[in-house]
C-alpha cells in the first residue's frame, strides 16, 4: 500500500512537470501582454521598457527554469492584469470556487443517486420517463444557456434570486464564505444548479444503468429468495454494489466541476478562479494562466489519488494481500 502511494505520488510529480511545461510554453505564444497593458496610444519606447521590466526579452528556457523554480516555492509572480501576486489572488479566489463546486456536487449526489435508484427500480413508470427526458436536457444543453435561462426566469421575471455575484461574504480566518449570510446563500442557488445539472444527470443515468445491471445478478435473486425486505435488497445489496463506478465518476467529475466552473463563473460573475482565469486569457496574463493550469493539474492528481485509495475501502477484493492472491 505504501509502495502504491509512493508510486502514485511520483507519477503525480511527472504529470505536474508536464502540465507546467505545457502551460508555460503554450502561453508564451498566446500573445503579447505588453500590448494590452499599455494603451494603443503608448510609444514604442514605452513598450520596450515594459517588456524588459517583465523579463519577456529573455530566452524561453531561462524564463521556463525561473518559472518552475519559483512555482515550487508557490511564487507565480505578479499578475499582469491586477499587479498583485498570483498566489495571493488564487488563495483569495479558491474559497468561492470550492464552495460553489461543493454545493454543486452535493446537489448532484443528493438528487442524482435517489433519482437513479428510483428510475432503476421503476423503469417503466411514467415518472421515470419524465425524469429521463428531463435529464436529457441537462446533458445536452450547454452550461451558459442553462445559466442564462435560470437568470431570465428567477432574476429578471420572478425577481427572487440575484443574477450575479456572491452576495455578502464573511471572513473565517482567511476563508471567505457565503454560507453564513442570506444573500450569500441565495447567490449560491442559481450558479450551483447550473454547474451541478450536468453531473446530476450523469450520476442519475449511471446509477440507473448500474442498478439495472446489478438487479439481474444471482445474489439479488438469492436475496429475494431469502425473503429479505425490498429495502434491504435494493439499498443494502444492490445500491452498495453500484457504488464503485459512481465513486470513480464522482471523483473525476468533482475535478471537472472545479476546473470547468469557468463558464458558470463567467455567466454569474462568480469571483472564483475560473473568472480569474478567463480574464487572464483575454488579457494574456501569463502568470495567472500558468498558475491556474498547474493548480488544476494538482487538483486532478490529488483527486485521482484519493479515488484510488477509496477503492481500497469500498472494494474488499483489493484489500487482499498480493502474495496471498497470487497463491491459489
Amino acid at each position, binding site marked *: 500500500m505504501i509502495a502504491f502511494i509512493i508510486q502514485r505520488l511520483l507519477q503525480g510529480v511527472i504529470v505536474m512537470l508536464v502540465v507546467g511545461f505545457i502551460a508555460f510554453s503554450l502561453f508564451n505564444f*498566446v*500573445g*503579447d*501582454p*505588453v*500590448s*494590452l*497593458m*499599455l*494603451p*494603443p*496610444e*503608448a*510609444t*514604442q*519606447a*514605452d*513598450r520596450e*521598457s*515594459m517588456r524588459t*521590466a*517583465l523579463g519577456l526579452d529573455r530566452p524561453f528556457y531561462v524564463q521556463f527554469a525561473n518559472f518552475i523554480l519559483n512555482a515550487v516555492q508557490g511564487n507565480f*509572480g*505578479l499578475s*499582469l*492584469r*491586477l*499587479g*498583485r*501576486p498570483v498566489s495571493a*489572488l488564487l488563495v483569495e479566489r479558491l474559497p468561492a470556487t470550492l464552495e460553489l463546486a461543493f454545493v454543486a456536487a452535493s446537489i448532484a449526489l443528493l438528487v442524482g443517486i435517489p433519482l437513479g435508484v428510483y428510475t432503476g427500480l421503476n423503469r417503466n413508470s411514467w415518472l421515470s420517463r419524465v425524469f429521463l427526458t428531463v435529464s436529457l436536457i441537462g446533458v445536452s444543453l450547454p452550461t*451558459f444557456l442553462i445559466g*442564462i435561462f435560470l*437568470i*431570465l426566469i428567477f*432574476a*429578471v421575471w420572478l*425577481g427572487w434570486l*440575484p*443574477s*450575479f*455575484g*456572491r452576495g455578502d461574504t464573511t471572513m473565517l480566518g482567511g476563508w471567505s464564505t457565503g454560507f453564513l449570510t442570506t444573500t450569500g446563500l441565495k447567490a449560491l442557488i442559481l450558479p450551483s444548479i447550473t454547474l451541478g445539472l450536468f453531473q446530476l444527470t450523469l450520476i442519475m443515468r449511471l446509477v440507473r444503468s448500474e442498478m439495472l445491471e446489478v438487479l439481474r445478478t444471482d445474489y439479488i435473486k438469492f436475496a429475494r429468495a431469502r425473503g429479505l425486505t425490498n429495502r434491504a435488497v435494493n439499498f443494502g445489496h444492490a445500491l452498495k454494489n453500484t457504488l464503485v463506478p459512481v465513486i470513480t465518476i464522482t471523483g473525476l467529475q468533482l475535478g471537472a466541476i472545479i476546473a470547468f466552473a469557468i463558464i458558470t463563473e*463567467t*455567466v*454569474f*460573475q462568480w*469571483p472564483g478562479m475560473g*473568472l*480569474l482565469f*478567463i*480574464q487572464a486569457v483575454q*488579457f*494574456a496574463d501569463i502568470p495567472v494562466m500558468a498558475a491556474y493550469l498547474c493548480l488544476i493539474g494538482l487538483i486532478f492528481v490529488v483527486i485521482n489519488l484519493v479515488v484510488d485509495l477509496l477503492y481500497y475501502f469500498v472494494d474488499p477484493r483489493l484489500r487482499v494481500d498480493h502474495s496471498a492472491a497470487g497463491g491459489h
Partner: protein
Amino acid sequence: MPLRLALATLLAAVLAALAPALASGKVLRYASQDDVQTVDPHAANLLTSSRVTGNLYEALVWRDKDWKVIPWLAVRWSQPDAKTWRFHLRDGVKFHDGAPFSADDVVFSAGRALHPLSQMRISLQGVEKVTKIDRLTVDFALREPNPVLLSHLTQLRIMNKAWAVKHGATLPQDYKAREDTYAARHANGTGAFRLKEYQPDVRLVLVAHADWWGRAAGVNESNLTEVVMRPIKSNATRLAALLSGEVDFVVDPATQDVARLRADPGIRIAESAELRVQYLAFDLHRDELLHGSERRKNPFKDVRVRRAVAHAIDAEAIRAKVMRGFSKPIGALIAPGIDGYSPEGDIRLPFDRARAKALLAEAGYPDGFEVTLDAGNIQPAADIAQAVAAMLAQVGIRTRANIVPQPTYFPKIERYDTSFYLLSWGGGLTADAYYTLQTLLHTRTAQGEGDFNLGRWTDPRADALLARLRVEPDAGKRREITRDILQLAAAELPAVPIHQPLIPWAMRKNVSAQVTPVNTLYFYRTRID
C-alpha cells in the same frame, strides 16, 4: 460667466439647505464589463482605470459640460514667458484623509507622473520641471512651448505626498518589483468621492467625500452618498442585472441589446459621440504587397488606388448594419469635439463603385488585385473588417479579412507585418488635434514621432505643418494649420477614415447622468431621484 457663477452659488445654497436630506443615502449601483486594473492615477493610461481615478483624484484644470478647460485645483494661471506657466492653487482643499492640499502635492504628483514607470507622461507633454514658489503657487518650466498644456494637464491627477511617502508608494506600479504598490489598491486624492473598498472582480465602493471643496464652490451636482461599481463580464448577465433592478447604470451595454432596452419603460439610454475615429491604413513603405497578389509593385503607393478604396466603402451601410446605428461616418482623422476639427478638413469621398473601378483601371488594375486586411478580434473591428472586405471585393480588390486575436494584433502591426489594416484612434485624452495627427501622420522617427504611422507614410509637407502646429500659440492659426493637414491627408489618403463611434449608456429612469466624450461617468455630476 457672472450668470453661471450666480447660478452655481444659488445651487450651492440650495444644496446646503438640502444637506440633511442627503444624509438619507443615495447609492448608485454601477456596472461595467471590465474591472479596473489599478486605482493608481499615474500607473496606467487605460479607460477602465481612469473611470475610477477620475472620480477619486483631481487635476489643476478640468472640463465643463461643453468639454472646455476650466479652473479646478488651480484657480488661475499666467504665462510669464512662453516656456513658463505659473499656477495659483485653490486654498482650503482637503484630501480624503483630511490633509490640506498644497504646492508640495503638485510638485510630487508631477514628478511621479514623469517617472519612466508612469504611463501618464503625456499629461505633462513638454514639461521639464515643476517647482514650488510658495504654499499655493507652482511654476511649470517647459523644454519648448506647449500651446495646449492645459488640455494635457486635465489628466495630471494630484496625489497626497505625505500619504504616498508614508505607504511607500512614491513610484507608480513597478512590475519588476514583483509586489503590489499600496496606491494600486488604495487612494488619497481630493476628488468628490473617496475609495472605501476594492475587491478585484467583485466590487469597488466609493463614498462621498464630505469635505470636498466642490460643495462650497458650487460645482457639486450629485446627491449620491455611495457608488458601488461592479464588473459583470457577461453581456447577457449585465443586461439582466439592469432589467432586474440589481444595478442602476450600465456604462457599456452590448449594442445589439440597446433596441430591447429602449423598449423597456424603466430604462433610459443616453448616447454620446466618442472622440475616436476608426480608419483603414495602407503599407506605403514597401515596394511590393507583403500580403497580396502584387509582387512587383505596391498598388497602394498609387494615390488613385487609395482613392478607389475610399470610394468603394459604404460607410452608411456600415453604420446601419454593422454598428446598428451607433456611428457617424467621417472623413477626417479627428472627430468633431477635438480642438482643430473643421468641416473644411472633413472631406469624405462619396460611395461610388463605378468611380472606384474607373480609378483602379486608370492605375493599371482593371482586374483588381488581392490583398489581406488585418484587424483585431474585438468588436466592432472584426465585423467592420468583414464588411469592408466584401465592399472592396465588389470593385475588384479581392480582400481577405484576417482577424487576429487582439493580444497578437498590436505586435503584428507594430513590426509592420501588414499591407492593409484597420485601427481606431481616440484623441479624447487631450482633445487636441496635434496629439492625434502627429502620431498618425508624422514620418516615423526614433524620437517617438509618427508612433502609429505604421504604414510608414512620409510627406515633408505634413511634417512641416506638424512642426508648426507643435509650437503655434495662436488658436486661430492652429485651426488653420490643422485644417491644412486634414486637407492634405484627405488628398493623399495615407489612411481612410470610416466613422466616429457613438457610445450608448443604459440606466434606470431615476438616474441623471452627464455624457462625456471620453466615455466616463463623473459621479459629482450624477444624481438619483
